[in-house]
């Protein structure tokens, strides 16, 4: 997109986008100030004595107005040719590039999720959320002046992902803030908000009419989108030349990311099937009757955490990762890093069996596959497979078996004791295994990044790797 453009040409292009962009942000904050002022949620911060006028109370509405002014100034600045200066400092960008390595990224997002969860009461405060909202947009604006960032974000097929990030943030806040409010109310013994407006709604005109309007508005929006960002044309498909990077559609980027850690049959078949099966099993597993019909966290902590982890961490962040951080040759790139196809990452991955036999104090060569000379030719492969499974790959096999067989009883006896007693054996085992499968992905990711672990069980002779 910016291919072959000189820097001045690039900045001119970005400026034409950023001018209106900051204006829109200014308007957004202006409207917020107006809302605050009109809705009577004004908070007076302090008074400023002014000559002639007397004392003026500075309120939060004025604060948001000031933010709007700042954005208006940024817009003028960007439009007036100063766009180059309107970027994150190089040091910050470097820091972000460094901080988006795989380990920091995944561990960081997980920690972030924990922080958000623990301090949800504070984060859902409108003022705080609005600040975060503003900062997110500002961050995007300041990053757009970076060529490499722009190249990724402004690509027409990546725009939905950027939208997704913002929409997700908004809806997460919406749900969480209501849940937090409900939890507080219920603590005080009040019914949840949803119970207050317990009136019936007519299909006609209320529901159908609303749907009609939504339909029209959405269609119009799609048309505007299609006009503004037409579908990009790319090179003719070629069987001998694949695009680099070759990326799945954005909604499959999470699945594609799994391919990095698992053998295709696991990442492409077993795990996706389990996701579907697991989602179908939820109603049967869920034994918690509370929280139906209203938002709550306290009453459904387990479900909430599992869902947020599975959706936000295991799905959305992987999409963002796949979009923003995976570049040519499927290497990791910081968001401000040039996608240079010549970047090489040293990735010499090692199987667990090699760690165990060769790189440990054992210091011996890998046990060979059993020869099984006397076996029937039809049976020999099975014999060899199991021979390998319990021979060379024994440590991995034990680990996997331990993980899936030994861990659930332990869980039942310890952390999930109450669950077990309420769910019964089968339901608990299903739940526990699904949970373990879900957890296996982050575990495998961390093992790969930290220990360069290739496979826990590696029997390439029979296309069986785990």
């Amino acid at each position: 997109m910016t291919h072959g453009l000189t820097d001045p040409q690039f900045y001119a292009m970005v400026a034409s986008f950023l001018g209106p962009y900051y204006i829109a942000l200014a308007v957004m904050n202006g409207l917020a100030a107006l809302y605050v002022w009109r809705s009577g949620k004004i908070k007076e911060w302090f008074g400023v004595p002014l000559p002639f006028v007397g004392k003026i109370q500075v309120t939060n509405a004025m604060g948001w107005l000031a933010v709007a002014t700042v954005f208006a100034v940024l817009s003028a600045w960007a439009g007036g040719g100063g766009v180059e200066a309107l970027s994150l400092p190089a040091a910050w960008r470097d820091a972000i590039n460094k901080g988006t390595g795989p380990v920091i990224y995944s561990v960081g997002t997980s920690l972030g999720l924990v922080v958000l969860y623990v301090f949800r009461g504070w984060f859902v405060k409108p003022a705080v959320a609005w600040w975060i909202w503003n900062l997110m947009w500002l961050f995007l604006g300041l990053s757009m002046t970076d060529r490499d960032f722009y190249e990724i974000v402004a690509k027409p097929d990546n725009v939905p992902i950027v939208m997704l990030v913002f929409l997700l943030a908004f809806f997460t806040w919406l749900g969480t803030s209501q849940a937090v409010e409900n939890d507080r109310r219920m603590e005080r013994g009040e019914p949840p908000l949803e119970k207050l407006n317990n009136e019936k709604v007519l299909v006609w005109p209320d529901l159908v009419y609303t749907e009609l309007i939504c339909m029209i508005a959405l269609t119009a929006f799609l048309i505007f989108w299609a006009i503004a960002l037409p579908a990009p044309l790319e090179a003719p498909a070629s069987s001998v030349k694949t695009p680099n990077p070759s990326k799945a559609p954005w909604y499959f980027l999470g699945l594609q990311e799994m391919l990095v850690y698992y053998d295709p049959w696991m990442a492409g078949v077993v795990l996706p099937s389990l996701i579907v099966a697991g989602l179908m099993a939820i109603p049967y597993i869920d034994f918690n009757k509370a929280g139906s019909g209203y938002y709550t966290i306290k009453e459904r902590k387990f479900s909430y955490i599992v869902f947020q982890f599975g959706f936000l961490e295991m799905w959305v962040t992987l999409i963002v990762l796949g979009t923003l951080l995976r570049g040519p040759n499927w290497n990791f790139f910081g968001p401000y890093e040039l996608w240079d196809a010549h970047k090489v990452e040293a990735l010499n991955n090692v199987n667990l069996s090699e760690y165990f036999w060769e790189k440990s104090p054992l210091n011996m060569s890998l046990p060979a596959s059993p020869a099984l000379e006397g076996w029937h030719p039809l049976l020999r492969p099975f014999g060899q497979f199991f021979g390998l499974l319990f021979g060379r790959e024994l440590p991995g096999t034990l680990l996997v078996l331990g993980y899936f067989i030994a861990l659930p009883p332990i869980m039942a006896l310890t952390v999930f004791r109450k669950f077990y007693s309420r769910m019964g054996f089968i339901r608990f085992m299903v739940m526990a295994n699904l949970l373990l499968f879900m957890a296996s992905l982050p575990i495998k990711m961390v093992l790969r990044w930290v220990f360069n672990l290739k496979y826990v069980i590696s029997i390439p002779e029979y296309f069986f790797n785990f």
Partner: protein
Amino acid sequence: MPATEQTWRNQKVMHIIFAASALVMVIATLWLMAKDHNREWKDWQLANRKKEAWMTQASRDKTAALFASQLDGQESELRRLQSEPIDPSYLVRFKEIVTAEESRLARDESQPFILGAAASETAISEVSSSGSTSLEATSREAASDFTKLEAAFAAFNELAQAAQSARAQVVAEAAKAQASKVGEEGPGPEVADDAGQQPDLAPPAALTSSQEEALEARRELLVQFADLIRQAKFREKQLVGRRKFVSADRTATVSEKGLKIGEDASKDVLETLQEKIQGYTDEISDLTGRIASAKTYRTDLEGVVGEINAAQDAISKQSQALLAELSRLDDLAYKNTSNVFEWVTRWPVLNALYDGNMRIDQIWLPDMTINYNFSQVARFDRCKSCHQSISQTAAGTTSGPAYPTLPREERELGIELQTPDAAPADGASLRDVYGLVLEAGVMDYSEVTVHYVLPQSLAAQAGLESGDVVRLAGDQPVYEPETVDVYLLNRSKWGESAMLSIRRGFDHPFTSHPRLDLYMTDTSPHPEKDFGCTICHDGQGSGTEFPWTSHTPNSAEQQIKWTRDHNWFDNHHWIFPMKPARFVESNCLKCHHEKGALEPSERFPEPPAEKLVQGWTLVEKYGCFGCHEIGGFDGPDKRIGPDVRLESNYADVAQQILRDEGLSDEQRDWTESLVRTPEDDRLRHQLAAVLNQDAKLAQQAEIAASATLTPQTHRLAAGLKDVEAPGTYRKVGPSLRFLRSKVEFNWLYSWIEKPANFRPSTRMPQFFGLHEHLQDEDDETELATAERFEPVEIRALSEFLLANSSDFEYLAPPAEVTEKPSAERGKWLFESRGCLACHSHESFPGIASEQGPDLSRASAKFKSNKGALWLYSWVKEPHRYHVRTKMPVLFLDPIAEKDASGMPTGAVTDPAADIAAFLLAGKPDWTPQEHATTWSANEEAALKDLAQEWLTSDDIPSARAQNFVHGDGIPAHLEPKLKADEKLLIGLNNGNRTDRLRDYVARRTISKYGCFGCHDIPGFEEAKPIGTALAEWGRKESSKLAFENMHKFLEGAGNPNHDEEHVAHGHLDPADFDPDTSYFIQSLNSHARDGFIWQKLRMPRSYDYKTTKNKGYNERLRMPKFPFSAAEREAVITFVLGLVNEAPAEKYVYKADPRQEAIVAGRKVLEQFNCAGCHTLEMEQWQIAFEAGQFEEPSEVADYPFLAKSFSDKEIALSEFKDSRGLLQATLHGQPMMNEETGLPERVDEDGLPIEPDDDESEPYYLLKLWKDGLVEGVPWLVGIQDLMVPAAADGYGPAIGTAYPAWGGDLTRYLFPRVIAHVHQSNPEAKGSEAWGWLPPPLMSEGKKVQTDWLHAFLMDPTAIRPAAVMRMPNFHMSTREAAKLVNYFAAASDTEFPYEYKSRQRESYLAEKESDYPDRMQGAMNIVVNGNYCVKCHTVEDFEPKGDATTFGPNLADVHRRLRPEFLRNWVANPKRILPYTGMPVNIPYKPGEPGVAETLFHGTSVEQLDGLVDLLMNFDTYARRQTEITPLVKESAAKNAPTTSDAANNKPSRR
């Protein structure tokens, strides 16, 4: 809960939201439609239509202005003619005709109409008969009354008389007024001529009214005439109608009778019917007769009236033609102008019904596919949707562009407009005064444009054209026509010129293709409907928007402009981006795989692909193919592109085999023959078999000893294998096989180090000292490594090449030479024997050929004794040293010197020695740096380190390699695992260490740099090219190109404009560079191929910037630097980018017909041996434009009829066609007369006398000597009759208007022309300079017509001396018979004659017998002419006879003519030699005299034609004639008598071979 009316949301608010969302939806939909509707191409098309309409309107208005006066004149002429009295004889004749007809009809009536036997009985017949008679009767009644007619005639003639006299009076008055006016003012300006003939510009009222009355009367008269004619017509029609009915009845009756026969009707019935038929038949024939007479009568009457009106009709017809042309232009203008209907139909939705003349202009090319990776897809080229005028030719031309494509800056012109001598009358307009009409702009209403210019007006003379935008009038900017009016019409001084600044022509996309002779038009070789656009230009043909069609800017400046104006962006997803203008020729290579097909030809004298051909030639010249294979074949015979590859190495392999001492004598003979004729497959197979056999012996342990050859020789058998589609190019560098015998170590060292040291113009590239990428401080170590190892490589190479070379036997001067070598003689020999055709030398400024090296410094190279010996051998017999050299053998045989009288002086000189002496004369201005002959300690250390580096590999780690190098070498037991070079290191010791290491390093270095790509190096016969193959480089994935740190390099060290500011910028801004460089910088920014190769050629090692630290020394880049200029570099890139391996479907690939193929193949050989260095292969082509009557007709010459040249009607019409400037065109082949002292084309004045250099008053002309019959203004100008006085360009060379395309070849001939004259004048001041061309290499334009193919072939293989007068002989190139055949075919094909065989009827026995049956002593008679002292033998040698006198006038031996010349050529030549060679000194011996003898009948009786025929027959059958003079029988008898057999087995004696 019961249902309530209460809704959840406020319905009113919902309605408002719904309304708002619906509104948004409407806006979205409309926006969508608008976006879909407003396509960029529509704007361009509308603008183009506007332009077309404007241009048509301008041409219409101009035509209308021109026609207006003509139409007026025709109208008054018509009026005059119509009011002239009519000759009464017409009336008389008319009446006579009518009367005669009446009497005829009366006669018919008196003889009652007879209807056969039964006619009167049938009612039908009666009716018909009476009917027809009554018809005629009525008409007769009316016709007989002439009174009305006569009255009308009389009335008209009376009035016409009056009108005529009124007119005469007016004419007389006007003449009087004119006469008095002339008396007062002298002859007036332009109007004077017309004035006499057009006195009635404003006819007086009296005349008009009398004419009106006369016209009225005439109409009345014509009505009267017409009445009679109408009656005649009526009668005719009646008769015809009648016949139709009768005819139908007859047919019906005939059919009835047929039916009746089928029904077996009675005979009577049938007979009745037959009678009835007969009756009808008779009536029909009668009617036919009467119709014929009626028709004759009518046409006669019409004829009379027609004659009366003849003159008027002719004029009316002319007017009609003019009016038709005007209305055609009107229609055209209307069609291009948008009207309301179109405007409405262009609306969205409606335009689905009709497109309003706006449509995507699409060329569909189903067979010209484009590669979409998974399939080949038909092309849709929509380029014309915007480039609407691209294939439009200028009116009246077949290939002139209607709107030339030129950049704006070249279209800004200053026009000098001559003002009239005197102030024009008040109120006169620009049109009246200058013939100039202005209007608001074509494309832009704020501009003022020339609407049209009247021919021959002042504006037309100044060169203003319709459509020119007037920018400045004087110094004043022009925004409205009034400004120009004021400037041109209110002048203080008249008679001086006024200045207008104009801009001519249009910008893209409104222009036409610049080469419509080659592309787009139906007459061109690439018509648009077959080829489209993108096959040549690339780009996205189906796109209709500027950015999506993948236009490619030609410079950064253009890119910035395009980005701004057209939203251009670099769409790197489209893998076929358009070629930028600079590389547009690259794509020719897709279909044109031979260079000869792209070079200028007679049909396309303007080079079709100049840059590409230049690049191709450079690739051949610099031997790029030595390292980079450019394969043109996919499989044995499928062509994919140009094929530029090294030939098979057979000669070198054979030479290497010769090194083997074990060869038997026979094997040695074979091998030596193979060295000389490597194309001899049989010999090669034989030799390979011998080697293989010997190798087999060696493998069998028990008989291994019987193998005589070494294993190295055995391995060479592989080099003799057949190759599928072998390459054809020789190595470009000299052989290094015998290097030791040629050069010294110091020279060699210096040469390898930097060839330009010794010879700045050399083609040898520079391998060492290329360190521009190692200049940064942190690269110090890297630089030091290079500086440490490079001298080691150079020294090792030099020593190795000398040590490894074979022994060479120098040639000794012949014994008979008596004189010492003389540099002075050598200088003339060097100049005149043809050395300068290929070499240059500073002693001879004015000629510089690049075929061979510049020899100015030869003395510095060969100053040693062996150098001199070598040079002598080389000059005399170059193939002795280098078998594949292109340098020919010049036949430098000893010369027996003669004194002025032509008697031998006894002194014999050796020209080869003289030339060598000349080259070695003088003190060298350059000497190589002295280098110690032994290795210093430092060098030895470096050598060891380098050897260690080479040796280090995965198998031999560094430490081990170090042990090997410093210790006892590689242990012998490892030998089987070692590579060939490494075996040198077995058994090292302190004695041989340096030498062995040196050889090892040298061999590795040669392999690394690929020296064998250009040179024959012993031991490297089978080495393969080291570089990337280039056959598909033009499509190479740019991700596969290692750009490495090129950006950083160009930002810093590699940027000549490097300064701190740009580094701070962090990015290379192409706009900071000149346009050419900026393009490539931009290209590098985009990681494109062209930028990569540009930098690779410019600084080949620079891609190593900052990478050397982590590479071994031997892994560094190795491409050398060639001494290309920027333009040459671009030409090479053009060629390489065209190598895409994308040959389209078979039918599009250029396929020459056999004749063209022969020409293309021949051109390659011509170029290889530089034939054009001496010979002119094409004369200059002058395309001139001139005014009618510029050239007088050439003088008539009585000549043999068969010499006449006939031109087709089309050619003659073309030569008489006037272009838009009113000029005629002619294409002439020839060369201007040259000055005999300077050798430069002579400018002469109108009397044909040379113009002095300081004379700037005379009009300059060139005396163009024609070499090909031409047509000038419909008149044939024939060769050798008369020179053409062509007006010369005011400055520079060429015609005043038009182009002189240069000759192809003959530089040396033209250079030597004045010099041989001067040389001959030294001994013979009388010698005629004009004949000097005859002493020089002849031009070969029509060589094919001239000589027999088999003779030419033999001559090329082994040239013989032909003309005694020539200063130099055709040298022997040692070409292969295939190459000679190609040349022979070329000459025959180029002169459009028969080949490879020709039928020589004159040499047939039967022909001679027939001729001699009439004149038995014919041959003898012809011989009489030959031997007569006045004719042939005066100048020609004939067999043993030699003429006496000045050798410069001597001609070739006539006894050999029958083998050399083609019969027809010989006849034409003897008939009139000048018609073939305009410069020849040979006279016409048998002048053409129809029916009379040309030479005395005492010699040969017969007419001149018969005499000529006889002479030609004799010359063509000289051997037959000579045989008849020889008698063998007496010899046999004599011999028998002498050696009478004494034994009985005499009969078994083998026939003696004599």
